[in-house]
């Protein structure tokens, strides 16, 4: 696994776009009126019903204003109908505003990105030039220090530092070089040193930047499966309340009470789940936005939702659990081999090894006074007598054929296999040393020359701080962690134990990793993983949540359904939290919305039936028995109904910040979390409107005199 992710342990959060930034507010206000278009509203059944109600009450008011009688009977004053109509319109506007705000924040991010897509001129390798927008897949371009990379691609030649702050927000430049797992470059980023040749890998208009803009803008937003299911539930509730309200009219007439259309519509709007109906799409957009602010690009809303469901996290040991770089700390020769001899062989076999491990072996060898037979940087070009054997996941060895000798270093088993293939036999001490190092949590690399094992290199692994706490955290969330490593079982077990991870996959090949994911999925579990190498691509594609590192190869970035711009593998934990937050926010606001109805009944129904079956005697001759249900002691029937509708409307903008921020997720176990949220949003949802409606009534009745 690449170690390029080593220095990314940081919490870079994209600057949150303030909710009250002036231009966002203006745009949102305009949009919320523009979205009153019924063709937009029809997609949201709950708000569509409110809008129809607004239209009918407005017509009623117009009739009353010109001296007519209110529709459906009753003797309500025109101001009442007018007030209800206004607040119903406001209910729809507030709902639109919630969505517009959420979109506005995404749009602000997109605008920044769009500015980067300035028209650049690409220098082709053949010397000609071409506009960046005309580049097609397969074009080769040269980019030198100070220039913008014209399009997404793979570095085919050279090494350069690249400033990717435009898309990652990280100011420190990163290294991009040909071959390996750090070859992918993104259009719009700037080369700050050296020169590279880039092969363009995207057709025009489909670049990473284009996709990113579309995503944060919400242009490609589709309803997620859970959102659809919730929408159906809301539509069902709306349907039942429509019947409840429609049948109330004949029931009222039977009892000698005629109820006006305006009041019936007010009751309907108060009952249907407008709060969640208004905020549902904002919650979804905000979920994507929260990912973006954590520098994660979710390629679909579905992926965000799935991340809340993750059961198993596959974490690469290197860079995630340990500090990436295992460093050589000791050469342990086999009997009959001198330390210097081992050091020299180890150094030679590592000269072409660009990994930090390889470099650390060369550094350690220098302490034995050993120098490379050729200068740095020349090995791949000039020295023809050295034939380098690169590391491959199958052989799990690397090395060099030099001066007729085959020098190899690699995992113990692979080396033993190698020398046995050469007719040799491993010394009995080898196994003991390998096991000892493994038990101590280190990584042993065996070194062989032809058929002889020379000794073992001790690579030390350091576990990152705070991993144990994080894994406890994950366990409390109900997520199982599996460490994936190429190390042997002993080493893996030791590190797994120290770091507190639940399980491990040792001696992992890409095939084994893919098989593990499939096995977990067949057991019904949702699997998340991170990856950056080309060989991770199949597993990334197979995983339910596949987070590709931005530093990774193009293949990896294509295979995953999320891209982490920070290339920080521990980000998965945050991703899962964002997914859970999104779902909790939906559930909490649905509960709140339905629980609110109790208070609304107690406000509106006594107002409607105050005179029903009045006896005409006693202290309140005009009041029937049901007036005792006016437990909030609201001023007049009209003020009671208006208060309920105002509360119903105002609660939407009041909850916009919560919808955008999301309800906090606490890893306290499902039952405790359910209890907590039921208490806050269920019980709170029953109590809050009693207080809110009473307060509004105090203002409009006692102060304004309604």
């Amino acid at each position, binding site marked *: 696994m690449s170690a390029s992710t080593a220095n990314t342990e940081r919490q870079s959060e994209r600057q949150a776009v303030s909710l009250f930034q002036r231009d966002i507010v203006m745009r949102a206000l305009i949009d919320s009126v523009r979205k009153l278009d019924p063709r937009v509203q029809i997609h949201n059944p709950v708000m569509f019903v409110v809008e129809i109600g607004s239209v009918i009450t407005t017509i009623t008011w117009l009739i009353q204003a010109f001296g007519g009688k209110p529709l459906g009977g009753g003797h309500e004053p025109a101001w009442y109908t007018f007030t209800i109509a206004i607040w119903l319109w406001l209910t729809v506007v507030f709902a639109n505003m919630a969505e517009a705000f959420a979109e506005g924040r995404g749009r602000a991010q997109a605008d920044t990105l769009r500015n980067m897509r300035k028209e650049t001129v690409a220098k082709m390798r053949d010397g000609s030039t071409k506009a960046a927008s005309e580049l097609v897949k397969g074009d080769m371009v040269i980019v030198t220090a100070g220039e913008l990379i014209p399009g997404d691609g793979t570095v085919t030649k050279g090494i350069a530092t690249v400033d990717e702050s435009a898309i990652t927000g990280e100011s420190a430049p990163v290294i991009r070089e040909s071959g390996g797992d750090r070859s992918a470059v993104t259009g719009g980023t700037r080369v700050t040193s050296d020169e590279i040749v880039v092969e363009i890998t995207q057709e025009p208009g489909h670049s990473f930047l284009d996709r990113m803009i579309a995503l944060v803008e919400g242009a490609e937003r589709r309803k997620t*499966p*859970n959102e*659809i*299911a*919730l929408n*159906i*539930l809301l539509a*069902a509730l709306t*349907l*039942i*309340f429509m019947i*409840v309200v429609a*049948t*109330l009219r*004949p*029931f009222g*007439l*039977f*009892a000698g009470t005629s109820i006006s259309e305006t009041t019936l519509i007010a009751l309907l709007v108060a009952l249907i789940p407008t709060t969640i109906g208004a905020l549902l799409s904002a919650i979804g957009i905000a979920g994507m936005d929260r990912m973006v602010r954590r520098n994660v690009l979710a390629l679909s809303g579905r992926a965000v*939702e799935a991340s*809340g469901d993750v*059961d198993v996290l596959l974490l690469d040991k290197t860079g995630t659990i340990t500090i990436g770089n295992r460093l050589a700390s000791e050469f342990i020769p086999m009997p009959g081999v001198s330390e210097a001899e081992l050091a020299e062989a180890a150094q030679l076999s590592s000269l072409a090894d660009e990994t930090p491990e390889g470099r650390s072996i060369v550094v350690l060898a220098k302490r034995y006074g050993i120098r490379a037979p050729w200068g740095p940087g020349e090995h791949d070009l000039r020295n023809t007598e050295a034939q380098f054997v690169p590391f491959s996941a199958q052989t799990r060895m690397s090395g060099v054929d030099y001066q007729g000798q085959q020098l190899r270093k690699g995992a113990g088993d692979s080396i033993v296999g190698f020398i046995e293939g050469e007719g040799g036999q491993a010394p009995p001490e080898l196994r003991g040393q390998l096991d000892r190092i493994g038990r101590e949590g280190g990584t042993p690399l065996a070194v062989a020359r032809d058929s002889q094992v020379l000794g073992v290199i001790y690579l030390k692994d350091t576990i990152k701080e705070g991993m144990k706490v994080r894994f406890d955290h994950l*366990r*409390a*969330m*109900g*997520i199982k962690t599996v460490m994936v490593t190429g190390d042997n079982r002993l080493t893996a077990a030791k590190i797994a134990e120290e770091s507190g991870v639940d399980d491990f996959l040792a001696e992992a090949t890409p095939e084994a990793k893919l098989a593990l994911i499939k096995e977990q999925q067949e*057991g*019904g*579990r*949702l699997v998340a993983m991170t990856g950056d190498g080309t060989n991770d691509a199949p597993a990334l594609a197979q995983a339910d949540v596949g987070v590709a590192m931005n530093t990774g190869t193009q293949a990896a970035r294509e295979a995953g359904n999320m891209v982490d711009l920070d290339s920080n593998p521990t980000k998965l934990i945050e991703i899962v939290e964002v997914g859970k*937050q999104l*779902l*909790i926010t*939906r*559930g909490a606001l*649905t*509960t709140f919305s*339905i629980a609110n*109805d*109790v208070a609304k*009944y107690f406000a509106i*129904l006594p107002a409607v*039936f105050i005179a*029903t*079956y009045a*006896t005409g005697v006693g202290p309140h001759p005009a009041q029937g*028995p*049901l007036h*005792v249900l006016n437990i909030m002691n609201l001023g007049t029937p009209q003020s009671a109904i208006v208060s309920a509708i105002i509360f119903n409307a105002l609660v939407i903008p009041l909850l916009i910040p919560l919808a955008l921020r999301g309800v906090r997720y606490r890893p306290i*176990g*499902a*039952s405790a*979390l*359910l*209890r907590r*949220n*039921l208490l806050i*949003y*269920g019980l709170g949802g029953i109590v809050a409107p009693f207080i809110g409606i009473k307060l509004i009534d105090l203002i409009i009745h006692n102060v304004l005199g309604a």
Partner: protein
Amino acid sequence: MSLTGWLTIVLFAVILTALALPLGRYMAKVYTGERVFLTPLFGWLERFLYKVLRVDPQREQDWKSYAKSLLIFSLAGWLLLYLILRTQNAFYVPHALNPLGYHSAPWNVTFNTVSSFMTNTNWQYYSGETTMSYLSQMIGLTVQNWLSAGIGIVVAVALIRGIVGRSGKSIGNFWQDLVRTILYGLAPLSVLTAIVLVSQGVIQNFSTYLTAHTLTGLTQSIAMGPIASQEAIKLLGTNGGGFLNTNSAHPFENPTAFTNFFEMLLVLVIPAALVFAYGRMTGNRRQGYAIFATMMVMFLGAVTVAYIAEAHGSPAQHAAGLHTHVIAGSGGGNMEGKEQRFGIAGSALFDVVTTVTSCGAVNSALESFTGIGGAVPFANLSASEVIFGGVGTGLYSMLLYVLLAVFIGGLMVGRTPEWLGKKLEAREIKLAGLGILITPLAALFCTALATASSAGRKSIAEVALSKSGGNTPQGFSETFYAYLSQANNNGSAFAGYTGFIQPSAGNVGSHGITFADLLGGFDMLFARYAPILFALAVAGALAGKRVTPAGLGTMRTDNPTFVVLLIGVIVLVGALTFFPALLLGPIVQGLTGHLY
């Protein structure tokens, strides 16, 4: 209120639980095809029946095929029963089976009655002893008592199979489930029950009616009949249609305080046992316990309110100073419409038992309950019969509510909702949502039609009697209760609402009120079969789903938190749907000293 009263209630809950646990284990075995102690006795009969019915019990059905069998079977039963009732005296019927030579009831009343017995409602516009021949009672009504109960149970079993199913679309075989339900469940239990009832004085004969001379010198006709055999299944199958008009208040149906207690147990034992069977069939008994706890809490809550309200009396009784009169043997309170031998606790408990279930048998007059006491049956019906509920229907309706609660609660723990490891998606929510909506919608819609039209108001007794037109809370309560009861397939009534005018026994010169008969009939059929289809469709949708193993982050459906959530969802959905209508009926009456 008295200590004896409270003790009766507590003892009832304890004995019910003790009986339902082993019965639940037994039923789980029956439906998973395990051998039970009755297998050697009935195994050959079961196989013989399959041969006669040409059923291959090995052939499993998907939900559509299961539903098709169920509908065809129901339709055939409907036609047969209609034929029997309409030809009561048309062909040669032995004198013993129609000793009084009763004619058939008119077509509209018969339509209502047939739909009523088909759907396990047992709503009765007619009086058994003045309308039905013994043949109609035994071959017609009793048989449907069995079959409608059986259908309710098999739907619940099929839904459970869908919930726990791990492979494919199959939810069992309808014919096999029905045969097993009757052979291993209803039949043996009914025989035992009938024997116990006879021992207590419930009659079982084909005599002609007796004539008695009263102390005041008048004559009184005393109805006879094969009552015990019908009484057993009336209660066990939560049917509730009395052989006699006064139902379980009549000494021939419910003679003693012991039979009163025993009959209440009979009503609840199968619905309660099915809940435990559900737990066992899911492989986690706690799932059953959680639902049982939910039902028991709501049940005891309803009993408590009813008992306190009845023991306290109504405001009108207080105004008249009636509550202070301690009537011999009772502790005072509202004894109007109650039998002395049952007392207030025995009546309050009985009526809660039969209105939480779809039984609807009564041992006292619901319309004579106090406003609040009378609101309890309303509230029970408003909860869509999920508190134990009818045999099978209670469980499958409850499971649809569980699905809804899991969806809302599941989101709040931060996962897309899953129930017993299966993801709940748009399709399940749509089907369960519709399944839950149908009953309340039917009830409200029919009540609106009946109260708004003069044809509908004709059925209200007070409309005919009073000059004011009878638009009183009582008139509303009667109408609303009639359609709520029929929609919930309950069958109990706030008397006064009628669909049958019968000047004399034997149906000569009688006529039905077509509007009430047909509206009620369709109310029952629609509110029975539409939810059944939705429940079976949910079973089909869940059957093939992949199961995710539960973890720490999974919402549990077998702990107290979930019980609270479930109760909250049931109460909230019921209250929000019916609160306005309840206001204009029982609540107005409960809040006023004025008599209606």
